[in-house]
């Protein structure tokens, strides 16, 4: 007893070598005694070891338990809830949701939902917040009854179930997926006011795990004359796109996992085509068929949609690459500044052509530019997060970001981008975006 009282008041390093053993044994004895006390008081189970620790500290002369008592928040005064088989975000964050436009009510499962970029951090999109684009709802596919078929100009047509593909060597890569129509409102003559996610949220980034498509095509044996692969989904629209064979033999993947778990139904369970850097639509979800052919097929979604109408009435077709692009997420519309002082400007940058090499920021509408810091690692065809500390002096400012990728592609100005196309052509917008910060701190989308 006397030893247990004495131990805490000893100078910690008065005689470390001599002190070590006795102190350890005292601790054990105190814990045992305290545990017996707690058990006697009828407390048991999950709370008992924590209570024992508190009692031990008390017995050792520390005032810990009492000092916590009065001011402690309620969640420290009662055991927390128990385990869950599959966790969910904190209910305090329940407003962090995908934005579903009102038109979705008319068209049911036809349309989009957007990732709330302004509510997220880092570069990985949680599975439940990945943007959606469906053409007739989300199919509920039984993986045991689903096969991916490869046929056409191949020596041996083959079929693969998810279970079969799981036996192949799997690789994991972090890639963004961006809808060709993302940021399409910037093609309109007047700037639309909306949160960063409302304007740019047809954009997500995940770690995808799956089988290289080239492995499967190699197994089937590509025949001479093959140039395109027609991909088809098993949804109620049997969504179909023509994919260049060159891409299929490069970094294309049959993705089975998304951020470590089986790919979500909204993203193509049990398997999807993943074509890094290519427009979202061509990354065919619920993939059921790959038909190796000599030519593309003019599928509906490569004619009526996702083609770039030019001022002369001609349209560019089979433009797949999501070009170099960035957007400031913080601050953005809806995140008004609370007076002069320190703010961090941050946002996302990406390029379908490879790695981001630099992001420049302007706080004066493009008159001067400063290099932003890039969160590491910067990966090819993945989202990168940029940061810049900023002291706002309270005067009106226009914030802009401009990114350059490793191939030397530079994000164009909005006016340069718009000039290439017919009025209102919404696809593949990658021009510079500008947020105006007014003297009262309100943030608005402006065209510079």
């Amino acid at each position, binding site marked *: 007893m006397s030893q247990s009282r004495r131990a805490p008041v000893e100078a910690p390093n008065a005689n470390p070598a001599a002190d070590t053993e006795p102190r350890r044994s005292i601790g054990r004895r105190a814990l045992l005694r305290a545990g017996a006390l707690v058990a006697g008081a009828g407390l048991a189970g999950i709370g008992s070891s924590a209570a024992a620790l508190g009692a031990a500290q008390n017995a050792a002369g520390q005032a810990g338990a009492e000092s916590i008592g009065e001011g402690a928040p309620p969640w420290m005064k009662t055991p927390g809830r128990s385990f869950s088989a599959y966790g969910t975000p904190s209910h305090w964050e329940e407003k962090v949701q995908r934005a579903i436009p009102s038109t979705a009510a008319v*068209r049911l499962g*036809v349309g989009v939902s957007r990732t709330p970029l302004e509510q997220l951090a880092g570069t990985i999109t949680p599975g439940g917040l990945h943007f959606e684009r469906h*053409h*007739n709802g989300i199919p509920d596919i039984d993986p045991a009854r689903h*096969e991916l*078929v*490869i*046929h*056409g100009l191949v*020596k*041996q*047509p*083959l*079929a*693969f179930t998810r279970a*079969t593909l799981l*036996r*192949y*060597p799997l690789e994991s890569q972090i890639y963004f997926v961006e809808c060709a129509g993302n940021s399409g409102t910037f093609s309109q003559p007047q700037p639309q006011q909306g949160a960063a996610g409302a304007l740019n949220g047809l954009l997500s980034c995940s770690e995808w795990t799956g089988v*290289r498509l080239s*492995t499967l095509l*190699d*197994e*089937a*044996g590509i025949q001479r004359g093959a140039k395109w692969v*027609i991909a*088809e989904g098993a949804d*109620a*629209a*049997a969504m*179909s796109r023509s994919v*260049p064979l060159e891409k299929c033999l490069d970094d294309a993947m049959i993705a089975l996992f998304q951020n470590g778990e089986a790919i979500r139904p909204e993203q193509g369970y049990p398997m999807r085509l993943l074509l890094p850097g290519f427009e979202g639509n061509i990354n065919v979800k619920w993939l059921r*068929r790959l*038909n190796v*052919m000599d*030519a593309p*097929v*003019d*599928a*509906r979604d490569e*004619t*009526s949609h996702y083609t*770039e*109408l030019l001022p*002369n*009435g*001609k*349209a*560019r*077709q*089979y*433009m*797949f*690459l999501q070009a170099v692009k960035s957007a400031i997420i913080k601050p953005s519309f809806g995140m008004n500044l609370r007076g002069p002082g320190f703010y961090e400007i941050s946002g996302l940058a990406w390029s379908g*052509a490879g790695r981001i090499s630099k992001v420049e920021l302007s706080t004066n509408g493009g008159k001067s530019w400063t290099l932003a810091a890039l969160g590491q690692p910067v990966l090819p065809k993945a989202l990168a997060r940029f940061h810049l500390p900023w002291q706002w002096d309270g005067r009106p400012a226009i914030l802009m970001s401009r990114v350059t990728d490793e*191939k*030397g*592609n530079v994000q164009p100005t909005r006016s340069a981008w718009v000039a290439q196309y*017919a*009025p209102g052509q919404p696809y593949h917008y990658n021009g510079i975006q500008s947020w105006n910060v007014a003297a009262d701190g309100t943030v608005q989308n402006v065209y510079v």
Partner: protein
Amino acid sequence: MSMFRRARLPRSAALPKNPPLTQGRHSEESAPGDDEPPSEAVILSGFTSLRSKNLSLLCPPQRPEPRRSAPLAAFAALAGLAALLSFAGLCRAQSQAPAQSPSQNKSAHPNLGRALTPEEIRNLDITVTPDGRGLPEGSGSVEQGAKVYGEKCQVCHGPQGKGGPLDPLTGGVGTIASAKPLKTPVSYWPSATTIFDYVRRAMPLNSPESLTNDEVYALTAYILSIDAVVPKDAVLDPKSLEKVKMPNRDGFLNSWPPPKH
């Protein structure tokens, strides 16, 4: 794991009948052909005397890659030579394999795909090309199409293809180069086969896969007749649909591949 188990099987049964590794590959419809490389037994026959069950357990044989004869033969020759020199030589040859990238190492290929029969593919393949390949047998007239349209399509697309809650199917011909382009199948889509293909695979929205091929030909004819791309008495079938010329057929520039940087 399965590789080792296979190696312990009698050689005569090892390759063709082992289900996990050759699943469906040697089905009746796809018996090994002349383009396939020799079996494992043939490859290894040069050093049979050196090979025992234990040896194959320690150094699992490189699995022949059925349709890649040239690189395999080269590797087999190397492996065979090494084996003739010594047991250790064989193991060394294989232990050096990781120097190859996984994609180059053909022996690492799982080869687990299930071989498909031509009939299975016929039942799956609904691809239709702009030059008419893949169009199924069947036919339908504008008149028949108008009837089906009234029953199954009008509720969404409106009478005669306009005024409905969903996409208009008519109008806009000649507007594509104007300040207000209206993109519809007849004003914008370059290929008539796309209408057939899309209706067959995706329409109607509330009951896709429910139309007969005749109905799809008829609906294609009806939609094209609204803007007089085909006459009111047109009947479409594989041959006539292939010949339909869309107003905006020259309006698209194939932009693949993109310019190199």
